[in-house]
C-alpha cells in the first residue's frame, strides 16, 4: 500500500466511523460515558482536512500525522489510544515507500504494544486490545501459511469480530466501563468494535 492508497483508505475509515458514530456512541452509552463515536468522528473529520497536504509524504509520515491529529482533536480515551497506535505504526514503517503485509504486521504489533503501554492495559480487560491482539495473531498465522494478503486480512477481520464477541462475556477492568464492572458483562466494547470496523475497511482495500 503506497501513500495514495493509504490516504484513500484512511478517508474510507473516516467515512465508516462517521456512518457508525451513533451506533458506537450508543454502545459506549450503555457501559461508559457515551462519547466514543462522536469523539472518533470528530478526530477523523480533522484528519481528513490534513490528508490533502500529505500526498507527497511517505506512508509512515501520513500515519504519524493521523496519530497526532487524533491525539489533539478526539478529546476522549480513544484519542491518546488510537493516536499512539497510529504514531507507533508510522514509526515502525518509517522509510518505506509501501506498506506490505509483513511491515503492516510489524506496525500492528508495535501499535498494540503502544496501546498497552499508554492504557496500562492488557488482553482480557474489555478494551480494543481484545480485538487488536487476536486479529494480529490470526493475520500472522494465515500469512505465514498462505502468503496471501487477502486471506490474511480476512482472517484478521474474522478474529477481530470474535474478539468483539468475547468482550461481551467479560467485565471491564480498564477504562470508564470499569466503574460499572460486572454490569458491563453482556455488552460489547466500543473500542474493540471501532478497531474491527477500521480493520475491515483496510482489508477491503488490500
Amino acid at each position, binding site marked *: 500500500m503506497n501513500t495514495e492508497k493509504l490516504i484513500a483508505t484512511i478517508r474510507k475509515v473516516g467515512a465508516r466511523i462517521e456512518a457508525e458514530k451513533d451506533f458506537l456512541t450508543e454502545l459506549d452509552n450503555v457501559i461508559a460515558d457515551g*462519547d466514543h463515536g462522536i469523539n472518533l468522528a470528530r478526530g477523523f473529520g480533522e484528519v481528513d482536512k490534513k490528508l490533502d497536504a500529505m500526498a507527497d509524504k511517505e506512508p509512515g509520515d501520513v500515519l504519524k500525522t493521523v496519530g497526532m491529529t487524533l491525539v*489533539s482533536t478526539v478529546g476522549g480515551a480513544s*484519542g*491518546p489510544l488510537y493516536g499512539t497506535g497510529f504514531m507507533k505504526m508510522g514509526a515502525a514503517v518509517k522509510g518505506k515507500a509501501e506498506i506490505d503485509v509483513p511491515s503492516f504486521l510489524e506496525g500492528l504489533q508495535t501499535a498494540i504494544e503502544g496501546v498497552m503501554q499508554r492504557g496500562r492495559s492488557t488482553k482480557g480487560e474489555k478494551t480494543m486490545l481484545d480485538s487488536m491482539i487476536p486479529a494480529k495473531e490470526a493475520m500472522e498465522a494465515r500469512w505465514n501459511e498462505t502468503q496471501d494478503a487477502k486471506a490474511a486480512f480476512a482472517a484478521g477481520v474474522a478474529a477481530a469480530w470474535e474478539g468483539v464477541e468475547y468482550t461481551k462475556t467479560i467485565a471491564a477492568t480498564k477504562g470508564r466501563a470499569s466503574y460499572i464492572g460486572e454490569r458491563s458483562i453482556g455488552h460489547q466494547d466500543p473500542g474493540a468494535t471501532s478497531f474491527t470496523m477500521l480493520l475491515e475497511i483496510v482489508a477491503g482495500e488490500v
Partner: protein
Amino acid sequence: MVGFVIVSHSGKLAQGVVDLARMMARETPIAAAGGLEDGSFGTSFEKISNAIDEVYSDDGVILLMDMGSAVMTAEMVIESMEGRRLVMADCPIAEGAVTGAVGSESGMSLEEILEDLEQVGTQKKL
C-alpha cells in the same frame, strides 16, 4: 514556585479545583485544563499544553488528572515537551491540589511536594 495544572474531563470541575486550592494558596501558579474547546466534556491536548505554558517555571509543574483520557493526554503532552520539568501526580485531584498548592507556596521543591502527594492518596477521611 512549583506550578500546577488541573486536568479534568469537566471544565467546571477543573476550575473548581483551582478555586479551592487558591483559597489556601493565593500565590501558587495553578491553571485549569478542563473539558474541550467547545465546552463539552473531554480532555484537550491544546488546553493542557497552554495551561502548562501559563504556569511553567524552572521549578517545574505538577499535573493532577481525574481519569482515563485525562491521564493519557497529560502523559502525551509531557512527552511532547521534552526537556521541561513536568510530572504527573497519582493522587485524588481536589485534596492533592490543596496539599500541593500549599506546599508550593511554603517553598517546597517539586520532589518534596510529590512525596507529600503520595501520602494524600492513602489518607482516610473517616
